[in-house]
């Protein structure tokens, strides 16, 4: 199972990036195999959430762990068939642990208004 976690850096020890579309990195991680693949994000001036949802879909993650998702990103992630867990904090490793313990709420709609708000 492949997770996508938004992070401020490329490793599991880096902090979670609370914004989905404009996160610094997307970390694709399989907890079973330990596989970790970091993709730096380069959002354009417009439609960062849409672009980010495409990256998640293209990298085959069906679970997203982040701070919050805006309306455009949410629509894209739903189309990608991804489950979205929001409210993550601390390091990437902390967030994965919280997700495994069932402590992160699953978003059933946009949790932010977009633009990281």
């Amino acid at each position, binding site marked *: 199972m492949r997770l996508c976690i938004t992070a401020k850096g490329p490793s599991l020890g880096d902090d979670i990036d609370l914004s989905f579309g404009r996160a610094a990195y997307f970390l694709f991680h399989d907890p079973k195999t330990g596989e970790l693949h970091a993709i730096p994000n380069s959002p*354009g001036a*417009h*439609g960062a959430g*849409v672009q980010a949802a*495409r990256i998640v879909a293209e990298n085959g993650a069906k679970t997203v762990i982040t701070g919050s998702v805006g309306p*455009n990103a949410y*629509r*894209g992630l739903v189309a*990608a068939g991804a489950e979205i867990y929001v409210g993550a904090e601390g390091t990437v490793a902390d967030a994965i642990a919280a997700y495994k313990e069932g402590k992160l709420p699953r978003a059933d709609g946009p949790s932010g208004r977009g633009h990281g708000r």
Partner: protein
Amino acid sequence: MKITVASGKGGTGKTTVATNLALALADDHPVQFLDCDVEEPNAHIFLKPQIGQRKSVEKLLPKVDEHLCTRCGNCAEACEFNAIAVIGKKVLVYNDLCHGCGLCKLVCPVGAISEIPHELGVIESGTARGFPFSHGLLNIGEAMATPLIHELKAGIDPEALIILDAPPGTGCPTIAAIQGADLALLVTEPTPFGLHDLRAAVGVARSLGVPIGVIINRDGIGDDRVERYCEEEGIPIVLKIPFDREIAQFYSRGVSLVDVLPEWRERFISLYGMLTAGLVSDIPGERRAQNAPLQEGGGK
């Protein structure tokens, strides 16, 4: 001659300056007034126009035929604004992000994309105190103001003395209102916020090659940093409007200064005299020559 009244900061007095200038000059000049602050137009409160025409302004949104579409993703790759995305088996169109350029339709190899018009807002035109008046009204929830501003500018009478009331800020709508003007009157207040946003507005006007004159409103509050900045930058301060209870009271009732205080009529008339006498020449000639034509420029 086209004069755009702009500011970085909102609420500095753009509309006060633009409407009073128009009213003071209308007796002797063929004034045409365009309120380009299409998100919150308010010049009509002071000019009280009789509106005769309403014109809808639309953008074209892509409509994808899901049966013809092969999910090749060419449209999504081509779109600068991420307004169309192919995710899995779905094609998503984001209306708010779409700028209506039609590139997705052009690059679709199977002709699956057609375009449907979507109203952004309306242009209302009429007569105010004997001169032509137009303003744009962006529909609630729409993000894209520039098509309305371009439409307003398309109605410019080349023989008229154009006064444009610009939207606040320094984004695409403000750029659309300043682009092609002969002069930008930047209204500010003598406060740190006023100075911060004035600097940004000066940057916009200069990069567009439009000469600048600064008007200080609520003069007497704050400090002298705006004046020092203008002196350092060689930007003329062409008018100061004092922080005055009587002026504020007239404003709050929708009464224009030039209608009740004759000395202000004289001040706005002599301001225009100063502008046309070439006393405002903030920038060198070669930049002025690059002054872009009216209809160029895109973005939101």
